[in-house]
């Protein structure tokens, strides 16, 4: 791959998905994109790049973005956020929304569905406490391919053994060979939608809880700050945002403040002017995607 081709792909991916590739990620591009090229009947990355320069190749462009952003996911990944969910967020919001009996949860990088389904299992475990409640879970991802898998809810024997308690496997899955399918009831609890986090959040509505885990790491600082600030705007003032174990709002945005002793959990910072002010020095203007 020539330096010019590499630069083109970096810019292309940044503009399309926000994905930021550092120098020397050629191996990653080649391992992910050669199969895409072959599938499209192209012999090399060079041939793929020259096709991508043609704006009419929308389908190929989508396939390239998907191949570069697809990620592994686990049920109950990192465990701690789900403890926050059942021990703190849910009890509190059930009390605060007792009149409305309605909650909305957004999984902003739902991948193959393990996170939304883990939340659905947590809700089922609440049992009769949720009787009469409407709890919506929206799972979005930039990749259609992973969303198709999420919708189908079929997982391999390896996937159902990473993070999923065996009791939950027995309770919520049916087996066919070494494939395990999540129950129709849990599938009906989650809505799926293809969505690019660089696009406007208008139309998504308001949420009580947003899980945005292990996706900001792919973006540069201004894009991270911008996404966090925009989440701040669609979150209820008494709602919560959950970031990944290696992610933080500190130094990026004053729209949120960490919840003490709850790693990865953030609450809207209502003291900050407007609730979503970027801190000085972080430039958020001039981003693509609006």
């Amino acid at each position: 791959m020539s330096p010019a081709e590499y630069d083109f792909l970096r810019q292309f991916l940044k503009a399309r998905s926000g994905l930021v590739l550092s120098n020397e990620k050629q191996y990653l591009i080649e391992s992910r994109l050669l199969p895409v090229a072959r599938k499209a009947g192209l012999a090399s990355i060079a041939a793929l790049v020259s096709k991508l320069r043609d704006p009419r190749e929308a389908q190929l462009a989508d396939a390239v973005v998907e191949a570069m952003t697809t990620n592994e996911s686990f049920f109950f990944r990192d465990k701690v956020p789900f403890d926050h969910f059942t021990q703190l967020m849910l009890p509190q919001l059930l009390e605060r929304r007792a009149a409305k009996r309605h909650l909305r949860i957004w999984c902003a990088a739902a991948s193959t569905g393990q996170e939304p389904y883990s939340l659905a299992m947590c809700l089922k475990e609440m049992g009769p406490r949720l009787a009469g409640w409407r709890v919506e879970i929206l799972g979005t991802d930039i990749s259609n391919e992973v969303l198709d898998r999420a919708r189908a809810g079929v997982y391999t024997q390896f996937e159902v053994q990473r993070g999923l308690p065996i009791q939950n496997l027995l309770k919520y899955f049916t087996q066919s060979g070494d494939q395990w399918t999540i129950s129709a009831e849990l599938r009906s609890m989650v809505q799926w939608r293809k969505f690019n986090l660089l696009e406007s959040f208008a139309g998504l509505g308001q949420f009580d809880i947003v899980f945005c885990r292990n996706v900001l790491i792919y973006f540069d600082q201004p894009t991270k700050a911008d996404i966090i600030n925009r989440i701040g705007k669609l979150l209820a003032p008494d709602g919560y945002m959950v970031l990944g174990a290696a992610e933080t709002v500190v130094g990026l945005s004053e729209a949120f403040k960490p919840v003490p002793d709850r790693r990865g959990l953030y609450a809207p910072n209502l003291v900050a002017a407007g609730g979503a002010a970027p801190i000085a020095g972080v430039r958020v203007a001039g981003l693509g995607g609006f």
Partner: protein
Amino acid sequence: MKHCLVVDDSSVIRKVARRILEDLSFAISEAEDGQQALESCRQQMPDAILLDWNMPVMDGLEFLAQLRKLDGGEAPKVVFCTTENDVGHIAKAIRAGANEYIMKPFDREIVEAKFQEVGLI
């Protein structure tokens, strides 16, 4: 250091499991069947037991039933690790008092996830 008893009639599986669990800071002892495992537990009750199902002399399920009757036998966390990977077997193991269940083939991540699940790590 926590102590894990690895029970499997395959020396290869015992070796693989030992390597993974030693990396997770467990002290390991081994048994080749349920009978040996029971002897080992009578002498020193481990914190965890990684347990195969199909073994000569005494199988894993029979061992588990015997273990839970022993003095202090309720304490160890028992994680089955077997090629029996159908719902029927899993349900039977859980009813008999197993804490978790690994379907072979397994890898480091699965062992770690399951041991975390039962609070051993």
